[in-house]
């Protein structure tokens, strides 16, 4: 713990380093915890999140797995059912499809189907999103799909603080929790508040207060939305930016309260629009907050295409700050 304290004194760090420190802390705190996945050991993690951990904790606790997503995820589920507290890393959410059966049919189902006899206290981490010219098979945003599944908790850290502390809360939770780390955010830098040593995994968080419009978002669309709010502020539009943080279960109360106050709302989601988390939020707002709204709900999502490689095409496929600004202008100052 001494070393941890020494590291913690450096408050400025990257999202990647925050993820690494979170894993390291979990391994120190609980001998039942291990990290398992493809290239987490010798390679140091595809996104260098687990660099150095193999040397520190050894191959029993930093387990390199073969390329067998269904089985190492299923093994994480079985290990959690039998008393360990595994962290399973799926290199990217694109590969999680190979493990979807295990996640949906076992992790999300067994606690309920066994009548509460078994719990699955498992954490699955995976990288998500586009923006690094990796082409369609490495650029999906699948968190909305997982948020469809009862029995799971789905987290999307969009800040250094959440990257640093969500893991601890997820490991303390007796349910299967999936953490989606955005690939573009790994290099993001920020300062940690030295007084903060934990975060909840239940609530959305207002990242910027404003009276004119609510921008509901998460992940890498959070910095884009905050940038949009900055532009809008210069024009006299005060946008409130709400970081969803937890995609399942959604924190209705915080979203509803914000929208009821600003009476206007944009949902920004890097997933596709059809059947997405943005669709779910818009539906809930229309069901419950219809009479609080002064304008139609707007959604800014990825274009409904496989994300292309070429930089200009990829940029055009994803939600970007100017679109958020334009949408806000059109809602707050209708023509």
């Amino acid at each position, binding site marked *: 713990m001494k070393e941890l304290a020494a590291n913690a004194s450096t408050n400025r760090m990257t999202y990647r380093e925050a993820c690494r420190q979170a894993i390291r802390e979990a391994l120190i705190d609980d001998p039942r915890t291990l990290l398992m996945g493809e290239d987490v050991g010798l390679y140091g993690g595809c996104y260098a999140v687990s660099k150095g951990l193999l040397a520190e904790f050894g191959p029993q606790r930093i387990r390199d797995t073969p390329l067998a997503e269904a089985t190492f995820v*299923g093994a994480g589920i079985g290990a959690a059912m039998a008393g360990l507290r595994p962290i399973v890393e799926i290199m990217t959410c694109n590969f999680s499809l190979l493990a979807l*059966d295990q996640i949906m049919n076992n992790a999300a189902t067994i606690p309920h189907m066994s*009548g509460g006899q078994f719990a699955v206290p498992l954490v699955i981490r995976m990288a998500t999103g586009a923006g690094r010219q990796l082409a369609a098979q490495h650029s999906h945003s699948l968190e909305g799909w997982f948020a469809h599944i009862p029995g799971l908790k789905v987290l999307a850290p969009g800040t250094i603080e959440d990257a640093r502390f969500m893991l601890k809360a997820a490991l303390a939770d007796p349910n299967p929790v999936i953490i989606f780390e955005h690939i573009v955010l790994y290099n993001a830098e920020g300062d940690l508040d030295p007084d903060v040593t934990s975060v909840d995994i239940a609530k959305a968080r207002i990242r910027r207060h404003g009276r004119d419009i609510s921008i509901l978002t998460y992940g890498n669309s959070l910095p884009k939305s905050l940038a949009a709010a900055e532009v809008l502020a210069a024009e006299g539009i005060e946008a409130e930016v709400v970081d969803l943080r937890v995609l399942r279960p959604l924190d209705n109360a915080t979203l509803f309260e914000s929208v009821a106050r600003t009476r206007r709302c944009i949902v920004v989601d890097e997933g596709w629009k059809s059947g997405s988390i943005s669709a779910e939020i818009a539906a809930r707002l229309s069901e419950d907050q219809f009479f609080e709204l002064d304008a139609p709900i707007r959604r800014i999502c990825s274009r409904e295409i496989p994300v292309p490689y070429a930089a200009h095409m990829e940029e055009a496929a994803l939600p970007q700050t100017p679109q958020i600004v334009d949408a806000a202008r059109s809602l707050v100052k209708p023509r």
Partner: protein
Amino acid sequence: MSQKPHIDRESGRHLFKQMLRIRRFEAKCAELYQAQKIRGFLHLYDGEEAVALGVMQALEDRDAVVATYRDHGHAIARGLPMATLMAEMYGKMEGCSRGRGGSMHFFDRARRFYGGNAIVGGGLPLAIGIAMADKQLRPGAVTACFFGEGAAGEGAFHESINLAELWDLPVLFVCENNLYAMGMPLELAEAETNISRKAAAYRTPNEAVDGMNPIAVEAAARRAVDSIRGGNGPYFLECRTYRFRAHSMFDAQLYRTREEIELWKERDPLPRMQKWLEETHMLSPQELRGIEADVEAEIGKAVAFAEQGQWEKIEELERFVLVDEVPE
């Protein structure tokens, strides 16, 4: 070290009675299905009793079991009370899974019974994880993982054997090779129909055994468990067996002949065991009647228990979707 099976009067009658319990239980299930007391999918274990029984004979309380959707035999042989199994199929909250799982999903935490899994091959990765946990938390414990030969078509089968061998995990893989994956004949599904050779490709000790003979299965399972407890990693047991009944209650059995079924019934372990016990004077007609009466009484009690069970309140529908704590 486990012992080689030694069949005496007591153990012989025990094996026979356990197989009879499964066989008669399944007959009652079929009857109750016709009476619409049991609904959903129902997969009966007739013909395969020697496999579950032989393997469970080699296991101890500390060991874990992962079963398939054809799990009645596994559950009974593992010692789950018939009454809670029947209540489960009635959908009653006294059932072993609170009525949430039905026939395909028996669970019992106290007996380390990690569920009947209804996704073919879906239980193998779970067994890998349970064995990982046991290796760290309960050294010496073995996880017995049952699956049919149809699972050999799934990627998880290959991934799991590889990982168990690679990490020296205490898993007993039990392949119930009954020649048909639902209606798909083995020779139309697999280029290599010798399933145990697939395990050999992953360097896992393996053997194929007559799955119609409980003594042979038990002997093989004890060899396997000894090897696993001895720290030699996993073991693969292919039990060659046959399902006498249809795949489920909705199966016209167009894929096999009556003659083939009759041929296999000549190897039915129950009459063979009975005949052998009678010929060796280990089972008198009176004792046989006693065993049959015991089994019928047990099943009668199980049905009565299920009939008298309570329906879970609809208000509890969402209970355990998310749990508040990890059960101890």
